[in-house]
């Protein structure tokens, strides 16, 4: 049964909106998957997108990161229109993306992976300081500096992805299924890392299949159905919604 409800949360560009997406449509080779999405993520906020397999969640994030060519709509980053900018320019302006699946460089060491996180930083001293800050934030990685990333555990690899991304100190962090394949204990650690980043003023937008735990760690949620935002609400409201529970939380 489709979910129908009016969006409760305002979608007009709030002044505090770090990322604002308007009427975004995107797809592959003539087939549109994402259909007219509006969304906002404010600094300090964690927003989770949920939806069935194939709903277009990954396509939405990839379109925002401009990894897809086939797209229309408008994207603003901290007020500035960045719709036309390529992926690396978006990153330079503070929009970072961790794609679905493993995205570490398996045969580079932890240190080399972090260095590549700062590929766009041309100031060597700043790069070193940023890498050191991440090694402080993730002590487990500091001990594994010279280890090839392929030899890290799943949880450590996820930490490395986040640390590598944070080397750019982005204002907005997008993650596609950060909890996939991780043990329950580690999932909690990843979500609390993301909460910590939000507390530090980052805007976090993630896609999750682990709906209950993701919403518990989020401020707001967006339900994506067939490429459309069927419902946007506070995470607590979605957690209490019986239709959401039935369709996305298996009970």
């Amino acid at each position, binding site marked *: 049964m489709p979910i129908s409800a009016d969006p409760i949360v305002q979608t007009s560009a709030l002044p505090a909106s770090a990322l604002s997406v308007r009427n975004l449509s995107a797809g592959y080779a003539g087939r549109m998957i994402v259909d007219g999405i509006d969304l906002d993520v404010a600094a300090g906020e964690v927003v989770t997108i949920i939806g069935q397999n194939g709903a277009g969640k990954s396509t939405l994030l990839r379109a925002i*990161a401009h*990894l897809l060519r086939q797209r229309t709509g408008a994207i603003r980053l901290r007020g500035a229109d960045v719709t036309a900018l*390529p*992926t*690396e320019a978006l*990153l*330079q302006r503070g929009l*970072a*993306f*961790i*794609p679905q699946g493993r*995205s*570490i*460089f*398996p*045969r*580079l060491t932890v240190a*080399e992976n972090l*260095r*590549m*996180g700062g*590929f*766009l930083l041309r100031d060597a001293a700043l790069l070193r300081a940023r890498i050191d800050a991440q090694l402080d934030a993730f002590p487990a990685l500091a001990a594994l500096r010279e280890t090839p990333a392929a030899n890290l555990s799943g949880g450590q690899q996820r930490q490395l992805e986040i640390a*590598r*991304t944070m080397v*750019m100190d982005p204002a907005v962090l997008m993650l596609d299924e950060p909890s996939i394949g991780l043990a329950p204990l580690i999932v909690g650690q990843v979500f609390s890392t993301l909460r910590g980043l939000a507390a530090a003023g980052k805007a976090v937008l993630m896609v999750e299949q682990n709906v209950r735990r993701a919403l518990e760690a989020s401020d707001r949620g967006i339900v994506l159905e067939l490429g459309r935002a069927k419902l946007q609400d506070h995470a607590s409201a979605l957690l209490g919604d019986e239709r959401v529970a039935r369709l996305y939380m298996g009970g």
Partner: protein
Amino acid sequence: MAFPAMAFPAMAVIAQAVNGIMMGAVYALFAVGMVLVFGVMRVLNFAHGAVFMAGGYLCWFAMAHVSPIYPVALLFSTAGGAAIGLVLERLVFRRLRENLSMQIVASLGLILMAQNGVLLLFGADALQIEAPSLRRVLRLGELGFTVQHLVILAAVAVAVASLHVFLSRSRLGIAMRAASQDIQAARVVGIAPDRVFAITFALSGALAALGGALLGPLFLVFPGMGDLPLLKGLTAIVLGGMGSVWGAVLGGLAIGLLEAEATLFAPTDYRDLVVFAALIATLLLRPRGLFGTAIRGEP
């Protein structure tokens, strides 16, 4: 005088080793350039031999018309090879990344164009690079080899060592390795794939042309001079374990040594047979090649 009784065979073995390592170094240089492009872009550029040949002609042209100083001609050829690599990547191979059969077709077309272009510009006769000092024979006891043997070994050693430092230490070199491992992840950290591809092809072209410019003074410069290194370079890549730079270097040296030593116990015409027999035997025992690991396509 050191080995009076065994003087002939021992000296012959050593003399062939010097020849073999020299040719092997050229094969290695050639193979490394092909492996880089394959590792980063999954492109097999069979026109790599044409770039090698172009390096020979560029060296001849530089010596005759730009500067008679050989190191200057080497730099000229290497820079020219990088430029050719950039053009090939931009105009041809960037579009063919996912398409092996079109890569082969395009390579064959490029080889034909290059060889006929050279025929038109320089004629069918082989050209001699005027560098008598490079062909001077040095004597070490009973061993004789040319100055160019030493120049080739030194130049290849410097090129491979520089490449190693570039790939293991520099920002762009690490980015090339990163892109070869996961192109999507490279994009999200801000590495623009097209730039990496351009740099890779430029580097590969530079190495190929350097090889042609190094071999030119010893052999002649002619339209088909890239065929031999193409055949042996490909063999080196497979022997070394498809994909790794060090595998290509060691594979190239091994083939050079083997084919040179083979002339001692088999007729010269049989040396390719010996090389391919060794290749097949190696692959039967070690399907990933001599130095191959589970890692594929890593420069």
